[in-house]
Each structure stands twice: as structure tokens, then as C-alpha cells.
């Protein structure tokens, strides 16, 4: 991939990918580290890419594998959640309510398993199909519907708490 092509692709995907990494790993600092690693592995790979959607899915598959691998390894420096210094939390009125709602999502997602977080994010934020989710997470397409239903039910229950 040429630098110009990479720049265009990066501009389209970097922020979304960072958000995905931050939410799936539950750690913003880890997301910073993994973002570079994702693009390095993506650039190094010689896997055939069919189209733009496939390229993006491939990038998210790399990201998912990196997060799941990192979760399997014990971390030396456990990070603390970085919500308390969010300026939106200190804002009055609607901004504070919005921030509180975001924090609910944050806390609820943190209680889910990384695979469930990834599945929900891919389905609802990226709008990925069941097949794309299965490819990204290395699962059977036929099992996605049920797994997604369970993950969704868990998140809904956590948000309702």
C-alpha cells in the first residue's frame, strides 16, 4: 500500500478503530499502543483484499485479535478508569446527564466479556453483518445470531441496573 493510499484509509478508520480498541480493551492507554500495532500488522500483511469493506473488516480483525491476546497476558501496570477527569462530567444540566449516560454505557460494557463487547460494537456501531462479525471474531456465522442476542440481553440488563 502506498503512503497516499494509507493516509486516506487511515483518515477514514483511525478514530473509529481507536474507539473500538478503547471500548473493547477498556483501557485508553492500551488503545493508544494497540492502534500503532494494528496499522503495522495491517501494512505488513500480504493478505488479498477484495474491497474497502473487506479492508476495514480485516483491520478490525487484527484489532480484535490484539485486544484478546493482550487480555490473555497479565498486565504489569493496571490502569485506572479515566472517567473522573472527563470535563463533561462536571458540566451542568444536559451535558452532565449525557456524560452520566455515557458512563453507564462505559460501566456496563466493562462488565461484559471482551468478545461480547466486540460483537455488540461491530453490530451496532460498525453495522457489520453476521458473516463479517463471524470473520472478525473467528466464529461460526450460524452462532452469531444467538451470541449477539445473549450479549445484547446482558448489556440491556446491565444498563437497566
Amino acid at each position, binding site marked *: 500500500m502506498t*503512503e497516499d493510499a*494509507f*493516509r486516506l484509509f*487511515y*483518515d477514514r478508520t*483511525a*478514530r*473509529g478503530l*481507536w*474507539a473500538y480498541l*478503547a*471500548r473493547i480493551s477498556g483501557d485508553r492507554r492500551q488503545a*493508544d499502543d494497540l*492502534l*500503532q500495532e494494528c*496499522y*503495522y500488522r495491517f*501494512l*505488513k500483511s500480504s493478505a488479498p483484499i477484495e474491497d474497502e469493506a473487506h479492508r476495514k473488516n480485516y483491520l478490525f480483525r487484527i484489532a480484535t485479535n490484539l485486544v484478546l491476546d493482550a487480555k490473555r497476558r497479565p498486565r504489569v501496570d493496571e490502569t485506572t478508569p479515566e472517567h473522573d477527569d472527563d470535563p463533561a462530567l462536571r458540566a451542568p444540566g444536559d451535558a452532565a446527564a*449525557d456524560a452520566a*449516560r*455515557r458512563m*453507564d*454505557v*462505559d460501566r456496563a*460494557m466493562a462488565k461484559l466479556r471482551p468478545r461480547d463487547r466486540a460483537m*455488540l*460494537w461491530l453490530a*451496532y*456501531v460498525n453495522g457489520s453483518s453476521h458473516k463479517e462479525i463471524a470473520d472478525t471474531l473467528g466464529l461460526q456465522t450460524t452462532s452469531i445470531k444467538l451470541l449477539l442476542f445473549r450479549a*445484547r440481553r446482558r*448489556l*440491556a440488563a446491565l*444498563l437497566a441496573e
Partner: protein
Amino acid sequence: MMELDDLALAAALKEDHETLAASAPVPPPALVFWRATIRARADAARVAERPITFAQSFAATCVIAVALMAVGAIWNEMPSLVTQHALMIVLTLAFCLLVAPIAVFVALSD
């Protein structure tokens, strides 16, 4: 009811995504590309060096083995050889001691 919950869930996740993405501290693409290029070169160099390191290790092992065999072959005649060629042995050892630090310096410097 379930459909409504789904919509609310999707809206909450999308909102969460938008907030996170807006505050994402992503480095500039040129920097990411440059880092990846540098790392790819370093990885390629490491892979290329692997057979050289193996060959060097193999050669060093062979040299040690040959030296041990040679010492073993002349072991019985060693005292007389040392007596006969004492000056040559001392000079060779002195030369080695002198050259060894220079050789190490040259080998380790880029």
C-alpha cells in the same frame, strides 16, 4: 418492545462511539506510516541476520572442535614442544593479547 430496546441500545452505543472517536488521540498518518516502515526494515534486517548468526556459531564451534582435536593429537609431545618453541609461543600470546581488544572494538562498532 424488544425492537425499541434494540434501538435504544444501538443509539447508546453509537453515541458512545461518537464521543470516544471525537476525543481519540490518534497520531498523524505520516507518523504511523513512518514508524511502520522503520519497524518493517528492522524486522527484515533481523530476519536476514538470522542465517549469518547461525553460520557464525557453526564456524566458531568447528574452530573450537578442530583446536581441541589438534591439542589432543599433540598432547604427549606438548612439554618438548613448549620447551623448543617457548619464545614463539610467548610472542604469539602477546600478539593475541594486543590484537584481541582491537578486534573486539572493530567487531562491535558500526
